[in-house]
C-alpha cells in the first residue's frame, strides 16, 4: 500500500496545476457567453444544416454554438484535450517514471508481485484522471451559477464530463500499455503523444469531411461528439469501443509488465 500512497502524493502537485487550468477554462469562457439573441433561434436551425467544413469554421460541428449547450460543448472539446493530455502524462509516468529514473530495481527487489506494483501505480492515476473530470463538472456548475445562467441541460453537463473522464482513461490506458510494451521509455512517451496528435488531426479531418464517418473510430477525441451529447445520449458503439480500448490495454499492460526485462 505504501506505493499506492506515494503515487497519490507525488501526483498532487500536477493535479492542482491541471485543476487550476480547468478552472480558468470554465470560469473564463463561460463569462463571455452572451445568451441567445432573438435572431439566434432561427440561425440555430440553419447552422446545423450547413456543410461540415463551414460548421467546423464556426467552432463546432453538429450543434449551434449560440445556444448555451452548444457553447458549453465547444468549451468541453478543449476540456477533452486537457483530459487526454493529462491522461497520457499520468499513464506514461505510472509505468515509465521509475524505469527512466533507474529506480525500478529498488521496487522490484521488494517482496511484492509485479501485479501488485502495477496496480498500486495504475489505480491512483486513474483516480486523478476521473478527479479532473469531477473538478470540471463542479467548476461548470460553479460558473453557471456565477453568471446566473439557467441551465436546463444538467443531464447533458453530466454526460459531457463523464465523456471527458472516459476520453482521459482511453489515453491513460493506451499510454500505460505502450510504456509496458516498449523497452525504451522515451519511445513510449513519444508514441503516446503521437497517438494523441494523430487523433487530434484525424478529429479535424472528421469534422471537415462530409464522408468522414469511417475516420471517427481512429480518433478517441471524437468518440463523444457534442451533437450526440446535446441530443442527450452517448453513441453506444463508441462508448463500447472506449471500454474495449481501456480494458484491453490495461490487461495487456499487466501481461507485458509482468514479462518485461527491467
Amino acid at each position, binding site marked *: 500500500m505504501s506505493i499506492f500512497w506515494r503515487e497519490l502524493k507525488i501526483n498532487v502537485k500536477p493535479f492542482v496545476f491541471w485543476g487550476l487550468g480547468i478552472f480558468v477554462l470554465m470560469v473564463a469562457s463561460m463569462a463571455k457567453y452572451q445568451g441567445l439573441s432573438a435572431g439566434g433561434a432561427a440561425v440555430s436551425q440553419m447552422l446545423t444544416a450547413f456543410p461540415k467544413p463551414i460548421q467546423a469554421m464556426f*467552432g463546432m460541428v453538429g450543434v449551434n454554438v449560440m445556444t448555451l449547450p452548444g457553447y458549453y460543448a465547444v468549451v468541453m472539446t478543449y476540456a477533452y484535450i486537457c483530459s487526454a493530455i493529462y491522461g497520457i502524462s499520468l499513464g506514461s509516468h505510472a509505468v515509465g517514471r521509475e524505469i527512466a529514473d533507474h529506480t525500478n530495481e529498488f521496487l522490484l527487489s521488494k517482496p511484492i508481485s509485479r501485479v501488485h506494483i502495477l496496480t498500486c501505480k495504475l489505480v491512483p492515476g486513474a483516480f486523478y484522471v476521473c478527479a479532473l473530470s469531477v473538478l470540471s463538472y463542479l467548476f461548470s456548475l460553479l460558473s453557471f451559477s456565477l453568471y446566473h445562467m439557467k441551465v436546463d441541460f444538467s443531464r447533458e453537463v453530466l454526460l459531457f464530463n463523464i465523456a471527458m473522464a472516459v476520453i482521459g482513461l482511453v489515453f491513460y490506458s493506451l499510454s500505460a500499455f505502450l510504456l509496458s510494451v516498449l523497452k525504451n521509455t522515451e519511445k513510449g512517451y513519444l508514441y503516446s503523444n503521437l497517438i494523441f496528435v494523430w487523433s487530434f488531426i484525424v478529429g479535424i479531418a472528421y469534422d471537415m469531411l462530409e464522408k468522414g464517418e469511417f475516420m471517427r473510430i481512429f480518433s478517441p477525441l471524437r468518440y463523444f461528439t457534442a451533437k450526440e451529447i446535446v441530443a442527450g445520449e452517448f453513441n453506444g458503439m463508441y462508448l463500447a469501443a472506449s471500454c474495449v480500448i481501456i480494458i484491453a490495454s490495461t490487461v495487456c499492460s499487466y501481461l507485458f509488465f509482468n514479462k518485461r526485462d527491467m
Partner: protein
Amino acid sequence: MNIFIFETKKQILGVALWTVALLLVVWGLTVGVYPSFQSSISSIKHMIESFPAGFAAAFGVEMSNLFNFGGFYNFSFGYVSVMGAIMAAFLGISLFSREARSKCEDFLLTKPISRGTLFLIKFVVGIVLLCCANIFYLIVVIVVGSAHNLSMFLPGLSLLLTQLVVYAVSIFCAIFARKVRSVSGMATVIGFGAFIISALSNMLNEPFMRYLDVLKYFEPADVIAQGHYDFRFTFVALCVFFAMTASAYIRYTTRDTRSV
C-alpha cells in the same frame, strides 16, 4: 562544428517526418477540403449574412474574410500552427535537455569549449532546422496560394515566426525545468497549451488575451488584410523571443552542473 553535426544528426529525422506530416495537413486542408468548402459557400451565403456580427469574429474567422482562400488559410493556420509549435518545442527541449536527460553534462562541459559557444551552437542548430522545414512549407503554401491568386509569402512566413517564438519559450522551459522526463510530453503540453490559450482568446475576445496568444502573434489574417504583420504583436513577439533566450542563456552559462 562537431557539435553542430552531432546535434543535427540527432534531430534531423524527427524534424523531417514532422515536416512531412505538417505539409500533409496544410495540403489536405487547402487543397483537399477548400474546394468542397468553396462549392457549398454560395448556397448558404445569404444565411450567414443574417448572423450577428460579433459572433463569427469570436470564433476565429472574420466575416468579411470567410469566403476567400485567405480566410480559409487563416483558419487552417489555427491547426497548422499547433503542429508547428509542437515541432519547435520538441526541438528546443530536445536540444537543451539532451545532456541532462542522459546525465552526461559532465562530459560536454569538461570539453575545451565555452558554455556560451555551446549554447549558441545548439541554438543555431534549431534555427537552421526550422528554417529548412519552412522552406518546404513556404513552397507548398505559395504554390497552392498562386492557384487562388494570393501572394502567400508573408502569410506562409507566419509559421516560421511563430515557431521561433515557441522555440525560445521551450528552450527557456527546458533549461529552467527541474527535470525533463519526456521531451515529447513537454512539447505536447507547450503546443496544446498554446492552442487552448489561443482558443480561449478567441472565445473571450478580450484585447489583453491576444498578448498571451503566441500562436496569433503573426496571424496570417493581419498580413492578408493589411499587407504587414500587426506591429504591436510583432514587438511583443520580439520581446518574448529575446527575453526567453537571454534568460536561458544566462542560466545555461552560469548554473552549477548537477552531479549525478
